[in-house]
């Protein structure tokens, strides 16, 4: 069975990053890897300035698991915008 993945925006508690991670990107990757080894490379973007968090391609169960993490503020499906 193939579970459809989609893009989620993951809002992280920026200041919760453990010192053991050199960068926030490393921390985000580790968060995903803790879900499943196959999700570690699913990060599309790690944001640094406009947003505290990342975008990743996840299935709904993975997104739900992330929501349970204390370091995660919010996980929501990416919205699609249209030209005006």
């Amino acid at each position: 069975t193939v579970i459809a993945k989609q893009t989620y925006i993951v809002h992280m508690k920026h200041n919760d990053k453990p010192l053991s991670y050199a960068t926030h990107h490393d921390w985000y990757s580790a968060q995903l890897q803790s879900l499943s080894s196959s999700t570690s490379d699913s990060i599309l973007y790690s944001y640094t300035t406009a947003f505290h968090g990342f975008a990743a391609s996840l299935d709904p169960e993975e997104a739900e698991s992330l929501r349970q993490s204390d370091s995660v503020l919010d996980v929501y499906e990416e919205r699609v915008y249209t030209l005006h």
Partner: protein
Amino acid sequence: TTRTPEFLGLDRDTGLWEGHNNVDLSLATHDVVIGVLDTGVWPESKSFNDYGMPEIPARWRGECEKGTDFSPSLCNKKLIGARSFSKGFHMASGGSFLRKPEEVVSPRDQDGHGTHTASTAAGSSVANASLLGYASGTARGMATHARVAVYKVCWSTGCFGADILAALDRAILDGVNVLSLSLGGGSAPYYRDTIAIGAFSAIQRGIFVSCSAGNSGPSKASLANVAPWIMTVGAGTLDRDFPAYTLLGNKKRFNGVSLYSGPGMGDKPVGLIYKNRNSSSSNMCLPGSLEPGEVRGKVVICDRGINARVEKGAVVRDAGGIGMILANTAASGEELVADSHLLPAVAVGRRFGDLIRQYALSDPNPTAILSFGGTVLNVRPSPVVAAFSSRGPNLVTPQILKPDVIGPGVNILAAWSEAIGPTGLEKDTRKTQFNIMSGTSMSCPHISGLAALLKSAHPDWSPSAIKSALMTTAYTQDNTKSPLRDAAGGGFSNPWAHGSGHVDPQKALSPGLVYDTSTEEYIAFLCSLDYSIERVKSIVKRPNVTCSRRYSDPGALNYPSFSVVFGRKRVVRYTRELTNVGAAGSVYQVAVSAPSTVKVLVKPTRLLFKNVGDKQRYTVTFSAIQNANRLTGWFGSIEWSNAQHQVKSPVAFSW
């Protein structure tokens, strides 16, 4: 664009932008970078010619990315940045390769929209511009000498939030001064709104953010991009028209508009048809709805709505029709939007549309002749609020009045991508350097360019001060000295449609006073929204936010307009703070206008600013005298003025 510089008073004859404080403001904008998030750019356009541009500011950290169809060498001192963001789009497409063969990872504009908006904001002057002879003149952006950086975030299936956020992230780091986003989605709480979150980071760094209000008008509460730190831009008409005429077999002639350029259909009447006998959707001219046997050789009446206007023209043409009358319905009213259809076509308003439909359905042998009148200027009244321009009230925070302003957004000529014809249809093989488009997408970059001009004139002004200057000096009377009208319905417009009014850049240059809103005040605003502290932190990206300061009501934000929501209260009181950006010793007197249902009291009624930069507060008390109709908006204004300046704020009341 052609005509809008004159319409906005930016033409050289007024000398305004060339003479302020002995600084050539137009040239001074070369230090200002406008970042445009859109469909990319056609870098070969003459609108991105860098003739006479000085070296790129050393602080600039952006770059032009290489793509299979885009060489970094195409960038220059005008177009100083071009990046693309496609991972979100790619993922949404199932991880497969990009849908169209030409849609490669590249900043090149395959759509035209991004080239149009970028050139509107900051295009260089191009003489002899036109679309097939229409709207001819010298085309230029609002900030002719500002730099442009494009961030391609929109692809064939839309603009994906992950890509938009990545572009905002990058644009802020690159060092843009103004961000222009002619795109949007539905409304959402600010902590779930990608653009609002990214824009907050931008304004914290002094970057002005201008966004289109949306094209979902005239429906109420149809706005996008309503965060108070964003300039939300609606659309109005210009004083320019493209007249075209429909002469019916009963000798009646009706005016409309058209951008058709071709051999025409001669002067012999041809058959006219409205609705096929066997298709319920043929009045809309949807694909496959027209019977070639009935349509061939005739002029077809198509109702506006559902599918794209240019697609209707293509459907008629493919079915063998030789002309089209595109007739408005109640939704679009009398607003006329011109398109460069592939066949002779005339767009008419609802009133004439109804008469033409009635004739076609009642006459046993209806006929029509279509003819075309080119371009006319000095149209009155103008501006008129576009029917399509999205309307308030603001659903996310009803206490903040939106849209903020309107700008030119109907029938705007600007640069175009040569990857696609002017209708945007694949079967349109024409290549044009310019195109005429309508939408709040077109009005937004006008305001972005004006913000760049103000930024160069007042480098120390915050984004909110620039926004305030544009809002409080906006006008609400058209060129016939009547209140602004609304194309939807034809009656007078109101602040839910035009916000503070139509921008007046000459006056915005010297507003006298500004409502200068600090980041701390925006944080106090967010804290008043009952968001959790973590959510507020996530928007403002500061670890030490406590919400120890919060407003009792979000409407208490130091905003240049008012939206008073009484709810169960009968009295609403707000305090505002004005900063003197005019002369020392300025004195202002207040004038209030209010509907009969509300009493408005301002204290004090006179403000004295001893020095430049002085701040003075006033308190305004709104008392509901009686409960008004909840479904109707009620409006008024508060204006501080002296001999030199008028600082006007619209007020919307709701119950």
